[in-house]
């Protein structure tokens, strides 16, 4: 049952992602992107990562997409015209490299060598404690330092936004 759900959602994710690339109207493009993000959230839930799924919806489908749509509306972007290909010589190498990367990824996935950390965080254990609680615990114990430094990172980003965008300093 879950396997079927996975295939359906995965198909939706890939299809909307492809539509996003080929869509000429930016508003429709943004809508396809929202659909991609939401389908990814469903995939996270299938992987028992409910917290990541919730964050995915809140941050990407919520905040970032609203920002995207705002920018599209404010700039009043028209339906994209056929623009001249600015990088004619990169087209063929890019397609070849893309195929090569796709092949490599397929080989890697087929080789089944991915072996994540399993020891203490089994599905049963995570379900027992609760997803959110476990992440919260880890953030304030094992990963305290990177968690705190992230606040400086956000602070720097805020300074940068004001610094570069404010009309008059």
């Amino acid at each position: 049952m879950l396997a079927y759900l996975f295939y359906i959602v995965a198909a939706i994710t890939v299809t909307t992602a492809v539509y996003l690339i080929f869509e000429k109207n930016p508003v429709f493009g943004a809508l396809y992107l929202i659909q991609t993000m939401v389908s990814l959230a469903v995939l996270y839930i299938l992987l028992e990562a409910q917290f990541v799924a919730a964050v995915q919806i809140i941050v990407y489908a919520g905040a970032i997409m609203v920002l995207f749509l705002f920018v599209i509306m404010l700039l009043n972007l028209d339906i994209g015209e056929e623009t001249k290909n600015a990088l004619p010589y990169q087209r063929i190498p890019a397609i070849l490299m893309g195929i090569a990367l796709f092949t490599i990824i397929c080989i890697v996935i087929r080789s089944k060598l991915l072996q994540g950390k399993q020891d203490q965080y089994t599905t049963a254990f995570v379900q027992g404690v609760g997803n959110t609680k476990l992440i919260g615990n880890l953030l304030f114990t094992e990963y305290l330092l990177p968690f705190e430094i992230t606040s400086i990172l956000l602070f720097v980003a805020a300074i940068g936004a004001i610094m570069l965008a404010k009309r008059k300093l």
Partner: protein
Amino acid sequence: MTNVSIMTFNILSILPILILSGFGMIVLLVDVLSSRRLGEKNLLAYISLIGIILAAIFARSPAGTTLFSFNESFAIDNYSLFFNFIFLLSTGLTILISHSYIKREEINHGEYYALILFSTIGMMLMAAGADLLNIFIGLEVMSISIYILTGFKRSKLISNEASLKYFLLGAFATGFLLYGISLVYGSTGAINLKQIASFIASKGGISDPVLLMGMGLIIIGLGFKVASVPFHAWVPDVYEGAPTAITAFMSVGPKAAGFAAFLRILITAFGSAHDEWQKIIYILAILTMTTGNVIAIAQTNIKRMLAYSSIAHAGYLLIALVSANDMGVSGTLFYMLAYTFMNIGAFAIVIVLSRKGDEFIQINDYAGLGFKHPLLALAMTLFMFSMAGVPPTAGFVGKFYIFSAAIKSGYIGLAVIGVINSVISVYYYLRITVIMYMKEPTREFAPLTISPLIVAAIAISVIGTLHLGIFPSKVMEIAQQATLMLK
């Protein structure tokens, strides 16, 4: 209700970081609270310098010990202490050379000093990070601060362009790095460098293609940060467009931080996979040195020339990385320190000669400087000699150690290519000296406005370059102690 017990950690290990972040915020607050009364903002530079000196004092205190805190993810050993010293030195020198420059260019905002301090925090985290997560967060803090600083001349188109270019390409490189980290985590189940190392050792080397791909992507991400070829396309434009003081900072601090992370990741985590990555770095080193030196010859703009020279120096440092022995690591430390002195010194002189609205950065502008300002020309000559690797300067000793390390590891071909490249580089470094002393001035030199702080920066750089060149043994000894703990 369960209790979360926050693990114990040694406050001394992160004290320099705490001090710098505290001072960064103090600078911002003082700037806001006193902006009307304090037209000149001299105070902010002094506050930042005090912060750096305090951080340096406390950074020094755990010398000689190895401290792992935060669940083994943060390492205070002689290696990270040496790098912390390089970062604080380059930050201090940058503030000294910025003070008059940003006033003249009318970009004298408090955020300037705060961002420099914050980016130093990122560098320290990169050098001390013993797991990939800390290294990544440190790299982001450092990079984002520098993207902003690059675009600090908001009214200048060239500065905006540089900032945007650096940001877009940097974000792309970060993506590579992060993808690499996630693949390494996926295949080893660990982000701690030591755990990755023990996993690889237990498998008897890397055979997993996922892990190999992850390692390759990490090399791309860090290769971008240290400006190695073929990930160097951003360097000349960004160096040219950024405010000159930031160019000086950018060519030293982030490069040192990139190498700090590079060495620690490749030697600590992938030490037993040396054969795999050594081939990649070998080719990168040759490409980087040769491209940097050959293109530098054709430059007429001194900032662009120094940009290509900085690419070439990254190539020499990659030689040390290939050899991956103790001598290579201590050679990197020594070379980075020497490079800090000579490069910031050279940029300081570019800043002294420039005026508002006239950057004075064509190499031909330097004609006749030797007669007009003999002391400045002498200092510039010294820095150029040092970068070319002429004894008795710091650059010579650094190159000597790096090439010896390569020979000791059996990479004689690489050392020979390095020496040939040094010879090529002599041409464009000495050309500046020749123009300064043997050509008639093509244009008027305006009276110089020299602030005491920038004189101090040049004096420190001259003394450092000469001292490391004539008496290298003491510093080299410290650098050698730093390498013992890396593995």
